[in-house]
């Protein structure tokens, strides 16, 4: 009896509340974004807003289901679930349907799911399970290799589906590894790599290499007494210049035309408002025209009249920006970042490493989605089609985010029962 009371009492209602709020706001925004004069009812099942309500209701059922099953289920079957979804990813490669150039859908007679969406929580479970094993030390090379493998296998499968957006999300797990003890240098290197990446694309690779060489020589001059130091600098120098040329090669020869174009547009090297730059430009216009107060619910002209493509999925933030203005956008960004921080705090209060690592994984995945999606809508990042958690239209993504979050809420509600 005591346990029964605890389940409800220990649920973190802040997370649940933010979740419900975001999902409902998302639904209203989808209604506004694709409002159809002939189907005015928000419940109209023939329209995507009617369907989204269906996804929301089934998501609530899913959440209730997760809350009802045994709390140890997910940690016990973490690898099994992981394996199952890897299998599904492979099935998609063989028998999937292609949408927007990505072969990521599995159809079951008129009804489709996107295994890549579900693979995220499955990977998260597997990583948490592995890293929380008692004899694990992340400093060990073996651990690093296994952890990397757990992440790389689904990433590779998703890349093979040509779904770059979903694959990028897996980079988020670096935050989890960092929290679990991976050297902080990885973040510094990541930052340096990102800056170098942008510089290489903006400026000629030889000029960049020259600057790096000059900096290294000056550095060597000052530490010329220290042989070990010189060797470190030289290694660093070779790696950096190698990175510069690799990036350039990848960009010129490996990236597909449309990807290269999107990046060029973002960097301002290419202005093409009708082609690759169209989406972002229209998106900025829609958001920018919202002003401080916004145009009011259902009053957006840019999103409503199809100027912004994909306005109910990848560019849903435009509707928020246009109709709710700076104020509304501020609140939504605040709610999303607030949810992330809440998850981190809750994760830190877990007694079980599995729950903590899983919690960090949840926050990291959501963070990556939010950063890439809103960053793209605001013209800060290249166009990468991934959904905004809880907002974007789509059954698979809403279900997968719901499962992802509620497994964590379930774990958290049982934290006191664990020793």
């Amino acid at each position, binding site marked *: 009896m005591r346990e029964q009371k605890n389940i409800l009492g220990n649920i973190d209602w802040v997370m649940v509340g933010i979740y419900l709020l975001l999902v409902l706001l998302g639904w209203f925004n989808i209604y506004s974004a694709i409002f159809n004069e002939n189907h005015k009812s928000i419940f109209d099942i023939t329209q995507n807003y009617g369907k989204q309500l269906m996804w929301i209701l089934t998501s609530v059922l899913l959440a209730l289901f997760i809350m009802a099953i045994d709390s140890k289920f997910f940690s016990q079957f973490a690898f099994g679930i992981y394996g199952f979804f890897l299998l599904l990813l492979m099935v998609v490669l063989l028998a999937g349907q292609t949408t927007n150039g990505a072969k990521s859908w599995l159809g079951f007679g008129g009804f489709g799911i996107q295994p890549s969406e579900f693979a995220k929580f499955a990977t998260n479970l597997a990583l948490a399970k592995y890293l929380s094993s008692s004899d694990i*030390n992340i400093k060990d090379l073996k651990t690093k290799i296994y952890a990397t493998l757990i992440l790389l296998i689904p990433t590779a499968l998703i890349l093979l589906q040509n779904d770059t957006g979903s694959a990028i999300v897996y980079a988020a797990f670096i*935050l989890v590894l*960092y*929290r*679990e*003890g991976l050297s*902080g240098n990885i*973040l510094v290197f990541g930052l340096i790599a990102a800056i170098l990446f942008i510089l290489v694309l903006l400026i000629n690779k030889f000029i960049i290499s020259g600057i790096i060489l000059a900096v290294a020589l000056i550095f060597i001059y000052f530490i010329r007494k220290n042989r070990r130091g010189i060797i470190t600098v030289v290694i660093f120098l070779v790696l950096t210049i190698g990175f510069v040329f690799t990036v350039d090669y990848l960009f010129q020869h490996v990236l597909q035309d449309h990807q290269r174009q999107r990046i060029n547009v973002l960097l301002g090297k290419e202005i093409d408002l009708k082609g690759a730059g169209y989406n972002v430009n*229209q998106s*900025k*216009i*829609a*958001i*920018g*025209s*919202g*002003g*401080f107060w916004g145009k009011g619910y259902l009053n957006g*002209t*840019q999103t*409503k*009249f*199809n*100027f912004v493509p994909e306005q109910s999925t990848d560019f849903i933030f435009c509707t928020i*920006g*246009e109709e709710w*203005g*700076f104020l509304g*956008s*501020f609140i939504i*960004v*605040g709610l*999303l*970042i607030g949810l*992330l*921080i809440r998850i*981190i*705090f809750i*994760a*830190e209060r877990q007694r079980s490493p599995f729950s903590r690592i899983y919690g*960090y994984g949840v*926050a990291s995945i959501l*963070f990556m989605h*939010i*950063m890439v999606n*809103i*960053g793209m809508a*605001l*013209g*800060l990042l290249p166009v990468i089609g991934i959904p905004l958690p809880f907002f974007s239209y789509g059954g698979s993504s809403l279900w997968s985010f719901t499962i992802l979050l509620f497994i964590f809420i379930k774990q958290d509600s049982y934290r006191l029962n664990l020793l």
Partner: protein
Amino acid sequence: MKKTYNNRKYVVITIFLVVGFLFIARLFFLQIFDNSYILSANKNALRFVTNYPARGLIYDRNNKLLVYNEAVYDLMVVPKHVKEFDTAELCNLVGITKEDVIQKLQKAREYSPYAASIFEKQISKTNYGYLQEKLYKYSGFYVQSRTLRKYPLSVAAHTLGYIGEIGTEVTDSYYKSGDYIGMSGLEKYYEPVLRGQKGSKIVMVDAFNREKGSFHNGIYDTVAIAGEPLYSTLDVDIQAYAEQLMKDKVGSIVAIEPATGEILTMVSSPTYDPNLLVGRVRGQNYNKLLVDPTKPLFDRALMAVYPPGSIFKIIQSLVGLEEGVIKESTAFPCDKSLLGCHNHPNATSLKSAIKMSCNPYFYQVFRKEIQHGLASDRFTDSELGLNLWSDKVLSFGLGQRLGVDIPNVKKGRIPDANYYDKIYGHHAWAFSTIYSLSIGQGEMGIIPLQMANIAAIFANRGYYYTPHFVKAIGKNKSINPLYLKKNLTKVSDKYFQVVADAMYEVVNEPGGTASQARIDSIIVCGKTGTAQNPHGEDHSIFIAFAPMHNPKIAVAVYIENAGFGGVWAAPIASLIIEKYLTKKIKRKDLEERMINAKLMSKH
């Protein structure tokens, strides 16, 4: 003891906050700092649509409709929205071939895949009815309505004029390319009245240019103001009758109400059905009319400068009386060595000279008018005399552009000394050079409207109101003050009655040249003319007014290459008078003969 890394949560949270902060900063920049996005959004989503007003209607003097607007429908297409459709059915509905469909679609696609272009212009009302029912099957097609001018009675083409797409020569910023503007006639002269005021409407459109409703419920929209009506002076019954009489004849009829200067009818023959120059058949018909050797587009009543012939003798008489060189009783013998004449008794008075239209008589009159003996040499004498003469003649509204409310009216020509100096040189000409003017020949030229105006001056016994076609403009029925002003001639009123009496005799007394113009119940006064024409048969001319006392109508009839004025022009003029004053024709035989006469073959 395992090292714990729980302080690293702060690094992670900081990363989240930094990204959140970047978003807020970017939002601030886009939404609050930079206003250009609002403008771009408006440019995206707002279209400024012109509301075209209905063009003003034109009525005749009895409020019968002469011109109205009829809705026509353009079939528009947005190529990007076109889905597969039943080509054969569409061909049937619109009346075009399959090749046309392919070609039109291709053209529209080249213009713009997203913007609408005209697929088929001006679909008739009936076809539109059928089309409207089936249109739902044709994705990407829609119908846009416009108005066309329509002429229910198919008369007065030259007077009413036509409208056409604006050309590059118009610089008025009111017009945009593709707008319609009056090109001739009343349509051109009263363009600012008829056109109304365009309105504008801001509509919201989506990315595919589809209308999505009005912007801010239309608070920035302006309503189009319909064009004002014109109440013309034309009598449509007389107009139609006159056109009927002029069938198969080349020339003009102009009739004026003398007391007001209102033009009752104006015919230039051959004419055309004004409905031909409307809609999608316009271009084709226009070109056909343009190359027609009988020049139906040419408005002879206002633009053909003819020699007036003998009708000018009545003005010659007045100038002589005014200058005191002749008297009512002046007699000259019919000396055919001076000028050719027909056989008639010698004129014993001015009246009998007019009645019989004696050429040598007016040779003498004109000689006296020119040779006053004001100078010792005949050249200077002629120069001074001609200028005195032309000064008086001009006051009859000749040799000058009458202020009629139709553009491109010809002045005609009344030569003065300066004119002959240019041809022959100063003091190189004298009366002997210019005597043809005495009988309305030579360098003199008059348009039919001026001839009718002469008749009106005699009807009024000495003055005229500027002839005009519109007696009231717009709903408040304003009138051009120019048309309320009485124009006096430079001849005293007292001399007119003599000539008017002579004009009575021309028609009503034995020996008069226009006995065929006699009407039992109405006293018609007139003067015939037969102008010599170096290119062929003489022109047949007659001007008249009726009734003699308190005249209601003044009319001029000019028929090219028809021969004697008394034979064709006079009876036709009298039929117009009879029709106007009695509303019916008693002289059925005459009427039938005139209508059926084909005088064009002599051309």
